[in-house]
């Protein structure tokens, strides 16, 4: 790897180390020496030397931030001394319920059966992409085939959903007789309201 002379003069090792630590604190995945060298516009050998300096500064017992060499390259992690504090940070009981957007999306999927994102968006009057993604990630809904060949993916509720809501099955959902006799009727009503809302 070429490390032109001008870099050695204009970019002393200490400055390179600062650049590397900056890159590492912004990265959301480990960075390889090569990636660091390209980003810092410097040579790989010099980057390794800078990493050596940083490893000395950011090590167990000396700093709360620790530089770790992992499979994909280098990354910062929390020191072991701070493990307890970190677990308190991450394991704070999430008593937070579901967001209004998530709850609406979940209600639509639970009551109206397998439903695609465009369908949910149509009923809600706003895009449902992030709400759907969030519910899938939490395991409350899951993919259930496509509308037609090549159509949009549909979603249904999961057994976890039933557990969280204390239901033995979807038939135990509170009745919505006031809205319609069948899910088709309810759906038609929701569509007509959605149209009025967007008119």
């Amino acid at each position, binding site marked *: 790897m070429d490390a032109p002379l001008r870099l050695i003069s204009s970019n002393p090792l200490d400055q390179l180390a600062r650049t590397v630590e900056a890159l590492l604190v912004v990265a959301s995945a480990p960075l390889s020496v090569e990636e660091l060298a390209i980003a810092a516009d410097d040579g790989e050998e010099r980057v390794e030397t800078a990493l050596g300096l940083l490893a000395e500064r950011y090590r167990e017992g000396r700093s709360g931030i620790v530089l770790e060499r992992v499979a994909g390259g280098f990354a910062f992690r929390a020191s072991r001394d701070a493990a307890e504090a970190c677990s308190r940070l991450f394991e704070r009981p999430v008593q937070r319920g*579901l967001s209004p957007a998530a709850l609406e999306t979940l*209600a639509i999927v639970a*009551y109206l059966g397998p439903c695609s994102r465009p369908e949910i968006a149509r009923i809600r009057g706003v895009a449902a992409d992030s709400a759907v993604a969030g519910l899938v990630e*939490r395991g409350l809904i899951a993919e259930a085939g496509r509308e037609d060949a090549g159509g949009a993916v549909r979603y249904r509720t999961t057994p976890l959903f039933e557990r969280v809501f*204390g239901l033995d099955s979807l038939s135990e959902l509170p009745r919505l007789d006031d809205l319609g006799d069948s899910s088709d009727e309810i759906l038609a009503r*929701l569509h007509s*309201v959605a149209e009025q*809302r967007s008119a």
Partner: protein
Amino acid sequence: MLAVRELALDLDAFEGPFDLLLTLVLKEELDLAEVDVAGIVLAFLERLAENATRPVSPAIHDGSTDTTAAPATSRRADAPELDLDACGEFLVLVSALLELKARGLFPDEEAELADLEPEEAAEELARRLAAYRRMKDAAGWLAERLEAQRDRFFRLGPAPLAPRPEQKLAPQDPAGLAAVLRVLATDPPQLSLAHMALRFPPVSQFLERFRAVLGRRRRFDFDAEVADLPRIDQAVAFLALLELRRSGEITIDQAAPFAPIRVAREETVSDSERTSTWTLRSA
């Protein structure tokens, strides 16, 4: 120099100079809903073409391009300041009218205003315009702020070696699901007529549209671009064109009066300048 205020208008609802029209509108002796704003724009364009053809040929000038047989020097001496100054003033006044008219199309607001004395109505209109202008200024402030933050980088998303937080959900009540669906099935409190304003397209809509076109292509033919639009939209689109020229984002040339108008991106204007200078003066 073309004096916009003295621009003679011959419209269905009004005949006389432009500033008298404004006066009557402000005094509510003339209902803006009755005024054909596109007609005003067309009258202005005609005057513009008239004035421009007298000294030399082109209807619209752009100092940087020369597409006519006339020598560039004589053309510059006679016409360009006329176009830009007059266009600027015209834009300010007409965009104010456009906004007032667009807002007048909200029936409930119209009713509100009808109860007011003329001077109160003018105050109310000015108040609404001011509210809008504040938001435009706030948008400008945000644009500058964003530019100033360009060199601040921070991590988005989780740290590489951080523990994955467990997203445990507390037990939920199924009644909540039924409740939100009932809310979704409830008729909206009142029919929103917000879309009424769209019947009269604001200039900003075309500013955005033309910027998008120029993002893809370096130049385009104005006439072809607006060929499918209703006449009033074409007139508003032309205003947008003038505004883009005024802010230095485009160059315009036209071989002869009523010949196709060619629009080209001005390369010297950076993205950031573009986002901060777009604001259309509205009053």
